[in-house]
């Protein structure tokens, strides 16, 4: 770890500063959406479909409307009068706000009740009678394109099948040739199941339309408040909502992980209700609604193939994927990337050629395709390449670490152009794997494994050497609904040298109030404790695309540094004026300009700030403020090597993660304590889908993981005590070399765990295990192999 350049008092980069946002959370004084209670506020609750696919014959709200305290029942017919019953998705598809004739998934919104009290609203939901005729659903994505499959999107004129898009990257012909020429070819089908972010705070909003001023304020669980404001203006412009009179406030957010990027129907209905009734309306979904109806993640059926020479040199990679998007393509990807950044699938390896294609289909499931704490579809890509690498190692009887070392992109090849066209900014993959192997004692673990295997004990060691792609992104390629994916910072230095810093992103626990303050502190030498960071209010913060895909540090963090540098440039002019010298005679150390060769002649940043308002040079504008809209020149490519050690109980099929070491390289580190916290959390959300979490459906489309009774989020008992270590390879294009870290571990951990489990069973002829590796699934494999106890 490098030594920080600033003192602990300033707490710039590299200091494990305690978080500035914590005092309010520790006292129970956070301010989350459900904590907001406005005068006259009404409550909304939602009637949901019991069927995956059904025709709606009628919705009878007579009984509900008789309940004292019920003010309105809103249906698709109500919204259709304002042409608000459909809305666009982030992928320019369409989805229903409320249906007028048909439901497309179980738990879909059917009608909404507005009442004076949340209990009364719930009573009314029970009293609404909906008459349905069930229709044949499409549940299995693999059957969605069958000739006889029901066509789901009959609302789209001319649509004759359930295909959404075909997307491909890489060189098909060259890759096929490489497969024909290969000494060895391995192939493995793998399914990355549908999962849910399940942030502990569910989604919700308080919509407050002020009829007198025509202003709509929405307190909302959103990771991207500015983009949401624009979407609202575009969707509801025709009913009189104008963007300058829409204010989105994203208060404290209880975890996001991608699940709070989309616009859900509940938000839109609450807004419509507030506009029509003229009172504040609160909607907060419960956990079952959250798991059953909000955007899912993953759901990729993949076939990965790798070609290689006999000596283990990888020559080509090919991956074919079928993506289940539910009944609408409501993924949260940049516009030009319908399968996200899946083409990062060549990973950390110097592959001469690769080809990958994704076909997406409609099914009768909730729409989505959000992140689950990963950059766009990167977890799926990493799973495919890290798994198929181990399959190749097994085929060649090579040590998986040695196979990786042999094929890593050499350090001298950076910046490196991948076979699918990405320019990796920087990397040192051998260093990360070497550090991981040395720290965990890889050689000794292999000896132990051999001894245990001789005794019939099942122990496995799994490696994952992943490369991520984050920080979207450069405006030439990256936009959401046409809005370029820059991000922003506005800095104001007050006369006494204290700062307010506003950003276009929105923390959901990442600690921006601390890390952004540290970035500005590093650049200006003003103590981080005196830098107040604000985000999430579209009336005050500069426009930005929000926080997801590990983009905050690469984009808004960079904007913070660039805005601070503009301020430093002006401060230098003021210092030269105050010290009566030329700018060129000044040198900077954190917080002080001094005259070269005469260090006693100096001005602190605080003195300069005061002068900016009291004694600024003639001809210069007063004040000390700056704005930066930062458009990154490239994405960033964090990486790491993870090693997982598992013991498998032959009696129960239970996987015990005995040790898990994560070596991460996220470039320059802002706050080591916070980085480790992000890694710990990411590892847990990597372990969860590897071992526990899945949302599946029965043949009728009934959800099987729709509550915390069935959807198993890891507790402290299943979660191991994660070990971490770092290498530091700065990004050459980021203003201070940072790459982003929030999601690396979620992306890198699952294949390390699966590789460890397969490694434990490799001598029994097991080559792959699907996730989640539940005790039942594993015990059945053990039984099949004759080793179950």
């Amino acid at each position, binding site marked *: 770890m490098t030594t920080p350049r600033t003192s602990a008092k300033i707490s710039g980069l590299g200091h494990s500063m305690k978080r500035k946002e914590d005092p309010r959370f520790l006292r*129970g004084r956070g301010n989350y959406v459900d904590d907001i209670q406005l005068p006259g506020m009404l409550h909304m609750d939602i009637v949901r479909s019991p069927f995956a696919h059904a025709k709606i014959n009628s919705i009878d709200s007579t009984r509900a409307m008789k309940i004292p305290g019920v003010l309105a029942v809103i249906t698709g017919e109500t919204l259709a009068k304002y042409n608000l019953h459909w809305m666009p998705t982030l992928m320019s598809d369409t989805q229903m706000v409320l249906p007028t004739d048909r439901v497309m998934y179980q738990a879909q919104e059917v009608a909404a009740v507005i009442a004076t009290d949340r209990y009364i609203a719930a009573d009314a939901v029970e009293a609404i009678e909906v008459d349905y005729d069930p229709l044949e659903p499409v549940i299995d994505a693999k059957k969605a394109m069958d000739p006889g499959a029901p066509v789901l999107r009959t609302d789209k004129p001319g649509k004759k099948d359930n295909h959404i898009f075909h997307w491909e990257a890489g060189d098909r012909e060259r890759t096929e040739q490489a497969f024909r020429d290969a000494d060895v070819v391995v192939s493995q089908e793998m399914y990355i199941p549908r999962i849910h972010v399940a942030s502990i705070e*569910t989604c919700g909003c308080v919509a407050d339309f002020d009829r007198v001023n025509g202003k709509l304020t929405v307190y909302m669980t959103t990771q991207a408040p500015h983009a949401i404001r624009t979407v609202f203006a575009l969707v509801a412009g025709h009913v009189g909502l104008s963007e300058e009179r829409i204010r989105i406030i994203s208060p404290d957010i209880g975890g996001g992980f991608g699940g709070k990027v989309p616009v859900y129907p509940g938000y839109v209905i609450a807004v419509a209700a507030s506009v029509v009734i003229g009172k504040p309306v609160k909607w907060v979904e419960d956990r079952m609604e959250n798991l059953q109806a909000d955007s899912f993640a993953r759901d990729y059926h993949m076939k990965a193939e790798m070609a290689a020479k006999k000596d283990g040199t990888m020559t080509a990679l090919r991956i074919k994927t079928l993506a289940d998007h539910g009944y609408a393509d409501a993924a949260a990807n940049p516009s030009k990337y319908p399968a996200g950044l899946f083409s990062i699938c060549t990973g950390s390896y110097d592959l001469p050629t690769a080809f990958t294609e994704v076909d997406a289909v409609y099914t009768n499931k909730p729409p989505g395709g959000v992140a689950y704490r990963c950059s766009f579809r990167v977890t799926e890509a990493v799973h495919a390449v890290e798994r198929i690498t181990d399959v190749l190692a097994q085929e060649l009887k090579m040590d998986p670490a040695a196979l990786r070392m042999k094929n890593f992109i050499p350090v001298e090849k950076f910046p490196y152009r991948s076979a699918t066209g990405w320019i990796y900014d920087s990397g040192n993959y051998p260093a990360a794997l070497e550090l991981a192997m040395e720290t965990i004692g890889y050689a000794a673990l292999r000896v132990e494994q051999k001894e245990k295997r001789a005794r019939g004990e099942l122990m496995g060691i799994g490696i994952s050497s992943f490369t991520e792609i984050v920080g979207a992104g450069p405006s030439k390629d990256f936009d959401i609904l046409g809005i370029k994916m820059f991000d922003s910072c506005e800095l104001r230095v007050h006369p006494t040298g204290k700062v307010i810093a506003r950003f276009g992103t929105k923390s959901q626990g990442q600690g921006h109030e601390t890390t952004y303050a540290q970035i500005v502190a590093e650049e200006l030498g003003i103590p981080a404790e005196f830098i107040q960071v604000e985000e999430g209010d579209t009336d005050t913060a500069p426009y930005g695309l929000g926080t997801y895909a590990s983009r905050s540090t690469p984009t808004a963090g960079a904007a913070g540094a660039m805005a601070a540098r503009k301020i430093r440039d002006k401060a230098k002019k003021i210092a030269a004026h105050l010290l009566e010298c030329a700018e060129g005679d000044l040198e900077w150390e954190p917080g002080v300009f001094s005259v070269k060769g005469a260090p006693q002649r100096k001005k602190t940043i605080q003195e300069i700030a005061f002068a900016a308002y009291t004694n600024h040079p003639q001809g210069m504008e007063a004040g000390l403020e700056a704005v930066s809209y930062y458009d990154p020149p490239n994405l960033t490519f964090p990486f790491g090597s993870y090693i997982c050690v598992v013991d498998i109980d032959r009696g129960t099929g239970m996987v015990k993660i005995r040790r898990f070491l994560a070596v991460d390289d996220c470039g320059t580190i802002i706050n080591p304590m916070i980085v480790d916290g992000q890694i710990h959390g990411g590892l*847990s*959300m990597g372990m969860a889908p590897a071992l526990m979490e899945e949302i599946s459906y029965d043949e009728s489309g009934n959800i099987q993981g729709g509550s*915390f009774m069935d959807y198993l989020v890891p507790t402290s008992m299943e*979660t191991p005590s994660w070990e971490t270590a770092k290498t530091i390879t700065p990004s050459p294009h980021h203003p201070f070399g940072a790459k982003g870290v929030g999601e690396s571990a979620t992306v890198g951990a699952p294949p390390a765990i699966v590789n460890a489990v397969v490694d434990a069973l490799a001598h029994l002829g097991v080559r792959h295990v699907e996730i989640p590796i539940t005790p039942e699934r594993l015990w059945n494999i053990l039984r099949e192999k004759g080793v179950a106890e």
Partner: protein
Amino acid sequence: MSRHSIKIDVNGTVHAAEVDSRLLLVHFLRETLRLTGTHIGCETSHCGACTVLLDGLPTKSCTVLAVQADQCAVRTVEGMEVNGALNAVQEGFWEKHGLQCGFCTPGMMITACALLEENHRPSELEIREAISGNLCRCTGYVNIVKAIQYAAEKQG
């Protein structure tokens, strides 16, 4: 719906109220008393965000009726500070980065307080068992365990 007169001691102050029989304790705390530090994450007793001490025992207030807490003493996160200063558990969570989004934190800290009142020197496994009814999605629990160990040492 019948109404009930209840008296509940919350963080040392007795609150008398008339409530519906079906009002949940968590809604009584959050919406009647406006003590919003106690959170709701699942309404089914799984996540623990709503954990409070009910007569000293950690209890999920999303599945307790306010009338069941009549004549009881409730302690919430708002009652954790001692003379205006963070108590040892709160301090530990700050020092050891035991929280990220902060949503599970009040319930987690309340559970930790109850553990440390019973067991002054819990092992890591005892800590993990104690908080196993409180879900956290952000931290991976590592620093929560360290925070509680910090508090145990501090309390001596």
